[in-house]
């Protein structure tokens, strides 16, 4: 058994692909999945004589990102050249930022494992992506696709403030939510729009020293991130407890085996020979530029979740779940508005539908909220009919399923067509009540003897007798009146 006094120390470096129409230093489009090399301009393939020109949208997006994580925006950040030879790096260097990144010193507040912790963000810098090497596409040759070369990235580097895999995943998810809100990244992890490298080390006892770390590269899902970190923590503890030492190295996560393996060690690390790129001027950003972007910032997830708790009387967990992406939050607000004029009363039932039934439908079908088979207005109509006692919660589930199946345009249409309207005629309900009381004398006696809980059973029997259409509140009242 590993010694429980081991403490993991984790920092994440996340590459966020910016959702610009064109590349960071050329006018070539950034769309994913085009035919190889069809989106690579003279600049992207580094022909002799070409020069980079910064895409102004990239700078705006980086400023918005910096503001959203409460960071400093560097007024004159500098692009530098990072040199290494590889066939998918056309210039022999990557244009990146080193000494003066565009964003420094931010943070995110992250809730995981029943506590909220502030995770520091050291820096976020701009850089261009490389192309892709296609090693399996040809016999005895490697194909080079430069469509991705020059795609703008923000590399966001956290402080080593993270102490568990779950917290790392929560931080990464929070950042993922944030960039989606800001509209600066499509967040598509399968296409590589949000790529995570995890720096992991472990240490024992009360110490401020860090252990030797490894860097696990290009983890492309939150689940894999947790697996990779947990694997790495256990591996490092095993090595150290059996008297070994950790090698500082780059590792790759193998999702099929659920383990990490060494890619290259520090001894093989490059001397990147960074120096300021003489083809590009420092990025001048004025206080006015920053204010302009600040005014255009959307409501951010943390603020939105707080507002949901307050205005819709939601529990924290529900508010967080609904604000995980802007589309879900919009869906919730649209549905609640369609349900009626009382957000404080209607918010919670609407949230329950979205986080419960709807989430399981989406999960089962592999759909996003934008592709939901039931529109926000339709769900609001359903919530409305439960709130005004037209149908019971139980009947509502049938109506929901019918809406999902496309059997009617609105909840009302389905209720009407199927005759699901709740029975509110007291005489009709009284008939069912009398029948049930007559059939269950034993329970009636128990009630009278003080076991008032038994009334639930009796209500259930009446509901059964009425095929669910009696109003349960009314049934309850009638029973109590009759036997009390």
């Amino acid at each position, binding site marked *: 058994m590993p010694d429980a006094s081991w403490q993991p120390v984790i920092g994440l470096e996340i590459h966020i692909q910016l959702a610009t129409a064109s590349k960071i230093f050329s006018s070539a489009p950034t769309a994913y999945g085009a035919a190889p090399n069809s989106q690579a301009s003279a600049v992207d393939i580094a*022909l002799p*004589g070409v020069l980079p020109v910064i895409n102004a949208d990239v700078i705006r997006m980086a400023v918005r990102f910096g503001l959203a994580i409460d960071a400093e925006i560097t007024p004159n950040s500098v692009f530098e050249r990072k040199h290494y030879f590889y066939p998918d790096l056309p210039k022999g260097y990557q244009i990146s930022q080193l000494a003066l990144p565009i964003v420094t010193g931010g943070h995110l507040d992250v809730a995981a494992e029943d506590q909220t912790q502030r995770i520091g963000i050291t820096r976020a810098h701009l850089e261009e992506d490389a192309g892709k090497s296609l090693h399996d596409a040809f016999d005895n040759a490697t194909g080079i696709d430069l469509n991705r070369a020059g795609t703008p990235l923000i590399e966001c580097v956290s402080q080593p403030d993270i102490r568990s895999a779950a917290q790392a995943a929560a931080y990464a998810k929070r950042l993922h939510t944030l960039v989606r809100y800001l509209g600066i990244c499509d967040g598509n992890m399968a296409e590589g729009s949000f790529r995570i490298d995890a720096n992991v080390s472990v240490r024992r006892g009360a110490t401020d020293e860090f252990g030797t770390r490894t860097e696990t590269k290009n983890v492309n899902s939150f689940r894999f991130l947790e697996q990779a970190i947990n694997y790495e923590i256990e591996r490092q503890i095993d090595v150290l407890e059996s008297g070994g030492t950790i090698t500082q190295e780059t590792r790759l996560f193998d999702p099929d085996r659920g383990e990490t393996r060494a890619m290259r060690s520090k001894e093989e690390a490059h001397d990147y020979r960074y120096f300021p790129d*003489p*083809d590009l001027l420092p990025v001048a950003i004025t206080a006015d530029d920053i204010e302009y972007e600040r005014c255009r910032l959307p409501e951010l997830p943390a603020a939105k979740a707080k507002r949901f708790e307050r205005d819709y009387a939601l529990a924290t967990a529900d508010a967080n779940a609904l604000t995980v992406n802007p589309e879900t939050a919009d869906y919730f607000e649209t549905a609640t508005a369609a349900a009626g004029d009382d957000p404080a009363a209607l918010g919670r039932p609407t949230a329950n539908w979205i986080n419960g039934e709807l989430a399981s439908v989406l999960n089962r079908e592999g759909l996003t909220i934008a592709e939901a088979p039931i529109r926000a207005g339709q769900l609001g109509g359903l919530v409305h009919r439960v709130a005004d006692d037209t149908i019971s919660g139980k009947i509502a589930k049938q109506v929901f399923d019918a809406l999902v199946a496309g059997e009617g345009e609105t909840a009302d249409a389905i209720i009407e067509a199927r005759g699901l309207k709740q029975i509110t005629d007291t005489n009709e309900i009284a008939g069912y009540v009398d029948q049930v009381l007559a059939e269950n004398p034993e329970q009636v006696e128990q009630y009278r003897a003080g076991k008032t809980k038994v009334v639930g059973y009796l209500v259930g029997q009446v509901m059964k007798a009425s095929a669910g259409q009696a109003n349960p509140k009314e049934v309850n009242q009638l029973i109590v009146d009759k036997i009390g």
Partner: protein
Amino acid sequence: MSQPETIADIVSGHIASPDTAKERIQACHAKIERSQSQLNALISQDHSASNNANGGSLSGLPILHKDLFCTDGQATTAGSRMLANFVAPYDATVVSRLAKAGAVSLGKANMDEFAMGSSNETSYFGAVANPWDTSCVPGGSSGGSAAAVAAGLVPAATGTDTGGSIRQPAALCGVTGIKPTYGRVSRFGMIAFASSLDQAGCFARSAADCAPVLGAMAGFDPNDSTVADQPVPNYPAALTGDINGLTIGLPRQYFDAEVEAETARAIQTAIREFEALGAQVVDVDMPHTDLALSTYYIIAPAEASSNLARYDGVRYGHRCENPTDLTDLYERSRAEGFGREVQRRILTGAYVLSAGYYDAYYRKAQRTRRLIANDFQQAFESVDLLATPATPGPAFKLGSQIDNPTTMYANDVFTLPASLAGVPAMSVPAGFAGHLPVGLQLIGPWFEESRLLNAGHAFQQATDWHTRQPPGFE
């Protein structure tokens, strides 16, 4: 001996009678073909354009482009085996602007490989000979352009200057050559050597001939982030020929340096001529001048090592036969594709940028570069222009310095400081050392090309050095 026509005469003739442009182009092509075995001034000839007498400021003017400028659909070699088979798919901004003004490119001028050299001997396509003495070098790196203008093959040619590559060959070939302010002319499509120093310029017989060519080349370009966004003055209109009251500074450090005796005498005579024209000549101090050579030979190779990393045998350019693996592909393609001087500078540049040496070399060189620029800033607070020898001596023999890089590098000692400071500078013919031309360098403040051209023009109104033609090329 016939007086060469001015560009203004040539252009107005073409506008009046477009057929004369066609005839001139054919005559230039014939001269080029006759000269090639003697001078080797061109890497490739271009017969595709017969006439471009479009009424522009350079209507039908035959020119050559240094083979560092990309020309759409044509071989663009940078004087290197690495790009011997490279056909550019686009025009450099300089090329398209000159074409728009009416200039007609007759081909690509020979040059030192990737503009690295002061003798044109590092070209993969063979050395260029100096028309004044074909056993001598024409200077470099724009040696082909300078030799072609000197030999009268074309009235003007483009060049590039990183540390003296226009001014030094202009001086050695007895023509006028101007390197404008860094940022005056777009670098887009100009194959990079040292990005923070490279600047396009031109050669012609006289300052008056350089003026319209530079005017057509200069100006803002959205494809180059380092080009200045400010209007281009009408350079020809600035040529009043009046320099009365102009203050010309003689930097003490340039005149204390070792200069060949006849060259020094020619420079002194030229300075007296400026005084005779009404200029006031004063001594100035530029205390950091002696740092320029070592500063330059850190910064330029550093940037070169980076700029030339793209020539890896993967996408275009030279690729070695049958590489065994990726490393072999890189190593042999680059070892075969680059000549010795280029390799020397790549190695030097990689060294000064490497971990542990960056601060001692590259960072320190950036500091000394600022000191050198400050010298110019201060000098121009008290003088309008600076005058210096362009080179320490006249053209040297082919083969005499090529095996001694530090001797070769010293040829640029007077041209490097202006490059490091980014100020405009030009070389004008100022006499002879024996049978070989001598060049006077004039240096102006940032973006004062008009002042520079006008001073050169005033001098050339009073002298005839710029009209001299090498024997056999009249």
